[in-house]
């Protein structure tokens, strides 16, 4: 694709920093002279435990490998590197983790650049104030959100839009590491800032944020490249073996979205109803006519996680057809027995409402739960997962131990005498703390950047000097 004036060329090395990309694709993409490199580094997809615990979903070594190549590539070309949702969920502890990796790579590779760290973790007093002002609004479906939710949360982050990235670029940042960010905002910020039509910019961003996911024949996570122009964008994967078709690019807006035509961002809605997709070669697709409808009110989505408790699980299976045919009754009787035994062991120290006891039945509806339309059991064996969630690990572990013993010997009417009803491959397992998402709401801030403070840092090898933002 020859470079033309009035275009922005964008390289997305991969869908998530830490999932990898092919170095030869990355080098080919760099030779196409991108104006910036963007990369998403997180998601809610791995579940609430990452926001709750502050750990990262991808291993440190895998993140370091991708980050190092991106930093080296960006510095070699002298172009900005924009990273969003650092450390999976974008909590401060995860931003710190990511900054430590940047420091380490800058030191070993003797890199010099201006770094912007953009925070997304929300201070509890700020949320309390917004709650009182009635400026936290539920999306659908949403759990209850009140002061108690704020108090219980381990971390609450705001999902930033494009504006905090623009502010960092305007401040001359060459590397931007942002907390939780809209995946698309990472890629839309520069084109929108430079006056490209928002419909084109945001749609290109939507394709880019997943790396090469929108190709026909995805082999492995890899790079994607886009040329954003005044009335269209062109998208093509740097690896010549990967093919984009109008169908594959149009299909990408389906992925992980509830609505394939309207994608809601902080500042408005990307509307793909009238988008046009044309093949311009056997591997590249041109997209035009996408629209962006500015929102009446700027909103920032919140994500929060709270600790449910500590969990222990026991895995066992049943092969006896007498037990299988009465499994619902069997588990109901077992649950009763366990309740009674827990009461006997803990007395007043633990109320029945203080712990959760749940049995998953694989072979019946373990995968789909209440959505399972098949009601009769067709399997000759069932796998049972007993799950105890309690205020401490010790209590959870104790109840799991009680569960094992009660389940092993629960009588059934068909047999007389002591039976052993459960095959257990392992002792029970202590899983540690478990978390849940507790927010599906938006904040209405006064300013798009007020929730996202920025640190500017002059990095030069091992030295880091804080600059006035």
């Amino acid at each position, binding site marked *: 694709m020859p470079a033309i004036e009035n275009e922005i060329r964008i390289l997305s090395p991969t869908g998530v920093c830490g999932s990898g990309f092919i170095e030869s694709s990355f080098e080919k993409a760099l030779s196409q002279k991108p104006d910036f490199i963007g990369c998403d580094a997180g998601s*809610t997809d791995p*579940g609430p*435990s990452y926001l709750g615990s502050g750990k990262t979903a991808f291993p440190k070594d895998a993140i370091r490998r991708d980050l190092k190549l991106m930093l080296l590539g960006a510095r070699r070309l002298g172009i900005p590197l924009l990273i969003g949702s650092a450390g999976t969920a974008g909590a401060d502890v995860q931003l710190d983790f990511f900054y430590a990796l940047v420091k380490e790579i800058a030191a070993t590779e003797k890199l010099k650049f201006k770094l912007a760290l953009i925070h997304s973790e929300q201070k509890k007093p700020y949320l309390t104030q917004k709650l009182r002002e009635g400026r936290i609004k539920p999306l659908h479906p949403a759990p209850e959100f009140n002061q108690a939710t704020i108090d219980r949360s381990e971390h609450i982050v705001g999902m930033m839009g494009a504006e905090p990235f623009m502010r960092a670029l305007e401040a001359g940042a060459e590397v931007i590491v942002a907390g939780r960010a809209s995946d698309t905002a990472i890629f839309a910020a520069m084109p929108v800032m430079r006056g490209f039509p928002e419909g084109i910019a945001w749609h290109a961003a939507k394709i880019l944020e997943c790396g090469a996911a929108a190709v026909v024949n995805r082999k492995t996570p890899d790079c994607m490249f886009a040329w954003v122009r005044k009335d269209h964008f062109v998208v093509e994967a740097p690896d010549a073996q990967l093919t984009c078709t109008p169908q594959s690019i149009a299909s990408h807006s*389906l992925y992980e979205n*509830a609505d394939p035509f309207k994608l809601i961002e902080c500042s408005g809605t990307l509307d793909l109803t009238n988008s046009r997709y044309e093949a311009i070669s056997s591997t590249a697709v041109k997209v035009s006519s996408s629209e962006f409808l500015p929102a009446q009110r700027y909103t920032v989505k919140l994500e929060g996680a709270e600790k449910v408790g500590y969990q222990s699980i026991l895995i066992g299976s049943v092969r006896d057809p007498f037990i299988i045919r009465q499994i619902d009754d069997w588990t109901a009787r077992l649950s009763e027995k366990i309740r009674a035994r827990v009461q006997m062991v803990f007395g007043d120290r633990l109320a029945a409402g203080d712990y959760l006891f749940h049995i998953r039945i694989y072979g019946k509806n373990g*995968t789909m739960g209440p959505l399972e*339309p098949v009601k009769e059991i067709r399997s000759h064996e069932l796998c049972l997962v007993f799950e105890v969630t309690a205020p401490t690990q010790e209590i959870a572990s104790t109840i799991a131990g009680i569960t094992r013993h009660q389940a092993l010997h629960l009588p059934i009417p068909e047999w007389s005498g002591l039976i052993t009803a459960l095959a257990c491959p392992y002792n029970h397992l202590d899983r540690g703390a478990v978390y*849940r998402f507790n927010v599906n709401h938006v904040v209405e801030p006064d300013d798009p950047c007020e929730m996202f403070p920025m640190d500017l840092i002059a990095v030069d090898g091992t030295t880091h000097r804080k600059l006035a933002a």
Partner: protein
Amino acid sequence: MTALAELSRLIRSKNAGPFELTFDIMFDDAATYERVKRSGAVSREAVAARYGVAVEDVKFFFCDHAYAIKASIPRPYFQGDPRDSDGHGGQQYAPLMDIEIP
């Protein structure tokens, strides 16, 4: 009559954020897509019936450019909640596979 799974390139389910599940039914070509679309067998009502949810809770779309049909429903339990069984929502599509297409 042909089962939907035999006509589709891919039927998949996935989280659409932690609070919703989404289903994509994708076809190789326009002709197959049009056949299924025109049959009326894949509809908001059909999805509601397969999953036992209210019709008004189903978001439903025909995506002509993508040769795809899409539906989204609220999750029975939010992603990662104590009773949730499928953190990524990836194994919830099976009830769509045997919808009969004339």
